Each structure stands twice: as structure tokens, then as C-alpha cells.
């Protein structure tokens, strides 16, 4: 196997647009983006709340959330697996080995990143604008939407970090998705499978496509934030 072979495989995948390959890419994007959106919906308000509130044990909570940013994907996967297995507490949902299970596992992975980075960003802003916000009647909870809005560019970067973590991981989706061909096979599990089959050129080719996709998503987000800054800023 040589590196040029891998580039040829990558180019071949993109040029041929084999439906199975397109399905894998679409599923990867769907799972990861949904997980990031879910984590944003939960994590942005929670992080902001944590940033502006003061309660006993707050430092411990912050340290805990920060530490969870390093939660190993395989552990997140295992936790969701044990919950969703037919022999687990949520077994009757029949969700194991489905894309929904993968989304749940990746949400669990992305959530600590969103909460921790949001908390830090909002806390800094809050320190700076607290009195100003209070003077226009925004105190406590009512300040959260404004703070989140003012921090949107920093928070977009937090979401991109979450996207990077989710799109790159293989441990969680492999355990809860099962790498079922045409149903729960993503870019990363396909790469792991092709490596184990000894087709290293195809595996690396898929890897190249994944890196390009990540680049594309980041470029799109950057472009959107630039546009946003110009028109809505």
C-alpha cells in the first residue's frame, strides 16, 4: 500500500459517488450534526446558567464538567449501550443498534464540551457587563439569552470543537451502532472495518474524505460567522 493509492481511492470514492459510500457520508453527517444540535440545545443554556449562578459546590460542578470533556468515547458508548440494551432499563425502546442510539452517545460526548466552554465564555462576559445588563432590567435568568447572543461567535467555536470530537470518534458509535452495513455504518466505523480487512488504501482513502468533510464544515461555519458579523453584528 502506498500513499498515492490512498489518494486514488479517495478520489475514486468521490468521483464514483457509489450509493453505499454516499449513504455512509450522509449518515455520519446526520448523526454528528444532530448530536451537536442536541448538545447545543441542552448545553448552551445549562452552561450559561452555570456561568452566572453562584451556589455551594459550584466549583466542584465546574471541575466535574471540565473533566468530562476527556470522557473516553468508548466509555460514553458503553454507558448508552447498558441503558439501551434489551436487558437494560430503557431496553423496551428498542433503540440499540440504531442511528438514534449513536446520536445519544455522541450527544453525551459533545455535551461537556459545550457546557464547559459556554460556562467560561458567559462567565467572562457576565463579569464585564453585569452592571450594564442590570441597568436595562436584565438580571439573573433574564440575562441568559442576551449573554448567549453576545457570545455567539465564541460559542460557535465551542460547537465546532464538539463537532470535531463527534465526527472523529469511533469507539462510541461502534458499540451502540454495531457498524451494520447500510444502516449504522459511519465514516469512522467503515475506516476501522476496512483496516481490519487489510484494505489499507480504501481505509486511508475514507480517512482523507473525512478530513475534507471536516474542513468543509469548518469553512462553512467560518464563512457563516463572517457573514453574520457583517450583516447582523
Amino acid at each position: 500500500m502506498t500513499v498515492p493509492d490512498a489518494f486514488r481511492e479517495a478520489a475514486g470514492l468521490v468521483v464514483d459517488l457509489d450509493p453505499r459510500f454516499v449513504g455512509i457520508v450522509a449518515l455520519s453527517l446526520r448523526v454528528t450534526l444532530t448530536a451537536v444540535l442536541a448538545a447545543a440545545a441542552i448545553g448552551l443554556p445549562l452552561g450559561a446558567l452555570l456561568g452566572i449562578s453562584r451556589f455551594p459546590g459550584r466549583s466542584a460542578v465546574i471541575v466535574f464538567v471540565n473533566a468530562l470533556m476527556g470522557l473516553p468515547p468508548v466509555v460514553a458508548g458503553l454507558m448508552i449501550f447498558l441503558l439501551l440494551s434489551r436487558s437494560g432499563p430503557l431496553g423496551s425502546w428498542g433503540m440499540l443498534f440504531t442511528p438514534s442510539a449513536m446520536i445519544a452517545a455522541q450527544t453525551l460526548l459533545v455535551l461537556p464540551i459545550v457546557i464547559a466552554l459556554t460556562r467560561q465564555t458567559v462567565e467572562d462576559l457576565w463579569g464585564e457587563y453585569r452592571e450594564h445588563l442590570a441597568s436595562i432590567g436584565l438580571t439573573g435568568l433574564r440575562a441568559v439569552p442576551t449573554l448567549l447572543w453576545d457570545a455567539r461567535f465564541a460559542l460557535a467555536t465551542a460547537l465546532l470543537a464538539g463537532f470535531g470530537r463527534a465526527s472523529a470518534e469511533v469507539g462510541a458509535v461502534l458499540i451502540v451502532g454495531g457498524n451494520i452495513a447500510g444502516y449504522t455504518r459511519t465514516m469512522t466505523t467503515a475506516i476501522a472495518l476496512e483496516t481490519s480487512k487489510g484494505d489499507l488504501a480504501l481505509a486511508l482513502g475514507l480517512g482523507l474524505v473525512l478530513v475534507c468533510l471536516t474542513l468543509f464544515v469548518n469553512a462553512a461555519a467560518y464563512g457563516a460567522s463572517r457573514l453574520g458579523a457583517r450583516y447582523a453584528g
Partner: protein
Amino acid sequence: MSSTRRLFIAAALGLGLGFASSAHAQGAAERFITVSSTTSTQDSGLFGHLLPLFKAKTGIDVRVVSQGTGQALDTGRRGDADVVFVHARAQELKFVEDGFGVERKAVMYNDFVLIGPKSDPAGIKGSADIAAALKAIAAKQAPFVSRGDRSGTHSAELALWKGADLDLEKIRGSWYREIGQGMGAALNTAGGMNGYVLSDRGTWLSFKNRGELDIVVEGDRRLFNQYGVMLVNPQKHPHVKAKDGQAFIDWLVGPEGQKAIADYKIEGKQLFFPNAAQPGA
């Protein structure tokens, strides 16, 4: 500014709901069963050949989760699969005896081969005596890669050491390397460290990163590798799709499935030999 914000939030929510509902609708519309099976049936490409034929005939989608045999049986025990298709007869019979499976049916066989580097440090190439070959590897302390994952191949490997009168616990050293991974990963590892490794023939034939590896021992009667299939017991796990699962089993052991298995070839070589009709298989 606040209207932009509301728009932004509404768009995000809408997108999220759209994704979630599309995921849901897709899951509900299809008729499918989940099969837990081994890495060998998947890595060798056999399922890629069989499943489209079965789907064309019955409309049932088969979702295969491939794991080592031990793990695949565990998946069945927990009720996370409808059908279990593996290769370790004793473990399969125990699975049925314990009430987790309904009935075990023999499907097909292939054989194990001992793979090793072309340099052959243990000097066993061309032998058809697996016990003598393992003794030579242990005596020379030549690198040996073990699956170490409770798979069917791992069970077979342990039985072969025992059959060669070697006590692995006593003789093992740094030359014996347990990797706890699938067949393909074990072959990659053996290639990387010029070691010996036991593989099922199907995965070996379809393996693409052979490098300096080749078959060193084959054809010993003790290298026989039987596959069996079982429906997960609906009395233990009421949600098991007994009817569709049984349809898959009946197809596999029936004339069409057996022919399809025999027809699967790589580079003109047949990988699996159907033997559902053979008594005692």
C-alpha cells in the same frame, strides 16, 4: 437583532426536529431482523453475498452486528439480536441448553489455517500436523498472535494448544501476544511482527494486506470449523422477531441458502461448505 435571534433559534430547532423525525420514520418503515454474527462471516464478504439474495426473496432486511463468537452469543443472551450465527459448537449448545436459544442448526463449515511469515522461523511450512507445528513455535518462542477475544477462532486456538499437550499458562511468554481484537486486526498484527496466527480460511482468502504472510499449516482434521445458527428464545425475550428470524434460519439451511453459500467464491476459491443436512455437524 432580537428578531434575527428568534429566527436563528427557530431554524436550529426545526433542523433538529427534522433530523430526529427522519431518523424515526426510516426505522419504523422497514421490516428487519438483527443478527449477531462473527467477524469471519463479515470480513470474508459472505454476508455481502447472502443478504441481498435473502432480501430479494422475502423483503426482510438483515442487520448484521459482527463480533467475536463469545460477544455475539452475549448479544443474543441480552436479547439485543433476533438470530445468532457463530462458530463454536460447545458454546452454541450451552446457549440453547441455558434457554437463550431455541434450537441450534448446523449451516456450513470451512477450516482454520495457520498463517506465518515466509521466513518461517519455526520451520513448519508445509506441515499438515497442527500439534507438531504449535510445539515447534513454542519451542522456538517464535512470535504468535492470539485473538484473545473469546471468539470462535480464539476458542479453537486454545483447544489446539491443549490438544498438542501444551499448557499455555506455563509456556506463554512475550512471544505469545493476545491482542483482544478481530480476525483482520490479528492478521495485520501478525504481518507487522512477522508472527504466526490462526485464521479461518475465509477471512484469510479475502484479506488484502498479506505482505510477507502465507499459509504454513493446513489440511489437519483438527482444523475443522463448523458454523451454527440459532433463534434467540422468544420466551426469554418476547420482543424477538421469531417469525422473520426463523424465516432467515430456514432459508440458510434450506436448498437456496445452502446453494448461495456454496456459490460464494473469491478468486475462484470456495470459502464455505454448506452442510446443514449432515447429521451431527
